[in-house]
C-alpha cells in the first residue's frame, strides 16, 4: 500500500542533509511552506542552497532560515523586498551567494529539470548582464541564451488538500511554483492544510498528480 503521509512536519524534513539543494514554493508569503521551513530551522541542516522566487522577508519562512545561518546560496528572481534585511546584510557581507535568474527563466529551468529537458534557449535576458558568460545563438532572427535545468535534492511545497498517494490541490495564487517544484526534486515534500481520503479529490481538480510527491505532512492549524 502506498502511504506518503508522514506523521509530523519534523519527520518530513528529518533527513535533509547539510549542503542540500532545496526548492521552496511561494511568491512572497503566498504558497510559502512556512511550517516546513520552521521544521527545517529546528532540524538545523547547514550550507543549504535555496531555490525560490524570493529570499525571504519579515523574519519568517526563508528569512528565518537565512537568519539561522543555514543558507549559503540563494537562486531566485527577486531578493529585494520590504523587510528582506536578513538576506540583504548577509549578501552585502559576502556570506551568502546569489544567483539572480529572470522569473520566467527560473520557472522554465525548474520545469525543464522535471521534464527531462537538457537545456533550452530563450531570448529573455539576451543583451543584458544576466547573459554574461552564457552560450548564445541567433534563433528565429534574434539572440537567445542557453539555460540549464535546476534539479534539487528536496522540494518544500505548500498545498491545500492532499491524499495518501500524494495528489495535491492548491489555493488561489498560492499555487505559483509548487506544481513545477514537485517535479524537479528527488524528494518533494508537501505541507497541506487538510488530508483527505483517497478518492475524495475530483480527478479533474488534482493539480499535482501523486507521482511527483514523496511525502505529505499536515500543517498545524494556525490560530490568528
Amino acid at each position, binding site marked *: 500500500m502506498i502511504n506518503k503521509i508522514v506523521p509530523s512536519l519534523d519527520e518530513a524534513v528529518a533527513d535533509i542533509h547539510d549542503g542540500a539543494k532545496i526548492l521552496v514554493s511561494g*511568491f*512572497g*508569503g*503566498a*504558497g510559502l511552506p512556512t511550517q516546513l521551513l520552521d521544521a527545517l530551522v529546528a532540524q538545523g541542516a547547514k550550507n543549504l542552497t535555496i531555490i525560490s*522566487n524570493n529570499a525571504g522577508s519579515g523574519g519568517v519562512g526563508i528569512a528565518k532560515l537565512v537568519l539561522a545561518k543555514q543558507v549559503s546560496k540563494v537562486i531566485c*528572481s*527577486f*531578493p*529585494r*523586498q520590504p523587510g*528582506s534585511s536578513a*538576506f*540583504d546584510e548577509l*549578501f*552585502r557581507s559576502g556570506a551568502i551567494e*546569489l544567483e*539572480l*535568474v*529572470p*522569473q*520566467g*527563466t527560473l*520557472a*522554465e529551468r*525548474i*520545469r525543464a529539470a522535471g521534464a527531462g529537458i537538457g537545456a533550452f534557449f*530563450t*531570448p*529573455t*535576458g*539576451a*543583451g*543584458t*548582464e*544576466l547573459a554574461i558568460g552564457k552560450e548564445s545563438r541567433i534563433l528565429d532572427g534574434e539572440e537567445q541564451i542557453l539555460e540549464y535545468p535546476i534539479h534539487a535534492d528536496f522540494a518544500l511545497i505548500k498545498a491545500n488538500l492532499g491524499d495518501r498517494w500524494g495528489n495535491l490541490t*492548491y*489555493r*488561489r*495564487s*498560492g*499555487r*505559483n*511554483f*509548487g*506544481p*513545477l517544484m514537485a517535479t524537479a526534486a528527488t524528494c518533494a515534500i508537501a505541507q497541506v492544510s487538510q488530508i483527505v481520503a483517497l478518492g475524495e479529490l475530483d480527478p479533474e481538480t488534482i*493539480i499535482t498528480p501523486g507521482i511527483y510527491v514523496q511525502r505529505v505532512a499536515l500543517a498545524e492549524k494556525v490560530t490568528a
Partner: protein
Amino acid sequence: MSTRYTGYTRRTIAQIAKRIVQDIPDGAYVNLGIGQPMTIANHLPDDKEIIIQSENGILGMGPVATGEDIDTELVNAGKQNVTLLKGGSIFHHGESFAMIRGGHIDICVLGAFQVSVTGDLANWRTLDRGAIPAVGGAMDLAKGAKKVFVMMEHLSKSGESKLVTQCTYPLTGVGVVDMIYTDLATLQVTPDGLLVIDRVDGLSHAELESLSEIKLRETNND
C-alpha cells in the same frame, strides 16, 4: 541638470494611469509591473473589458482587496492582496510565464529607471553601492509581451532626464519599449527617435526637449 520651467503642471500618477488606459483596447490582456503600473488596475473603465494578468499565476485579476475580501493566498506581483474577477483563472508559474514568454500578452506596463531613444529599457538595477539586484519577471515581460509600455516620471529625483541616448544603468531588454508615458508627455519609440504624442498644457516642445536633454520629434498637429 535641466532648467526648470514653471508654466505647466505635471500629471499625477492617477492621470498618467488614465492616459495609459486610453491606449489599451477593449479585450486586451495586460500585465502590470510592480510600482506605479500596478495603480492602473484602479482605473479600469466600465466601457472596456481589460483582462489583467499577474505573473504569479492570475488571469482576470481585480482591484486591491480590502476588509473581508483579503485572502493572503491571493496576491499581485507586488505581493498586495488582490481580488479575482468573475471569469478569472489561476495557474502555476510555468503556465504563467509560458503565457508571457510565448507572446500571448498584448501589453505590459513597466516602470523604468531609464529608456533610450531606441527603446532600450533599464529598470532592474541601479548602480548604487550595496543595492540588492532584483529582476523578477521584468526581462521576460520586456521580451515576451507584444507591446511594452513604460510608465515613469520624466525626470529622476535629482532632476536628470530618464529619457537617454544610451542607458547607463544595466539593461532589462534591448529595443523593447514601444510607448512611454510620463508626468510630462506621451512618447512613441520610432525608428527615427522618440515621437511626442502629447505633452502637458503649458509646456512647449522646446521646453520638453530641454528637460529631456535629447532631440524629440514633434507631432504634425503641434
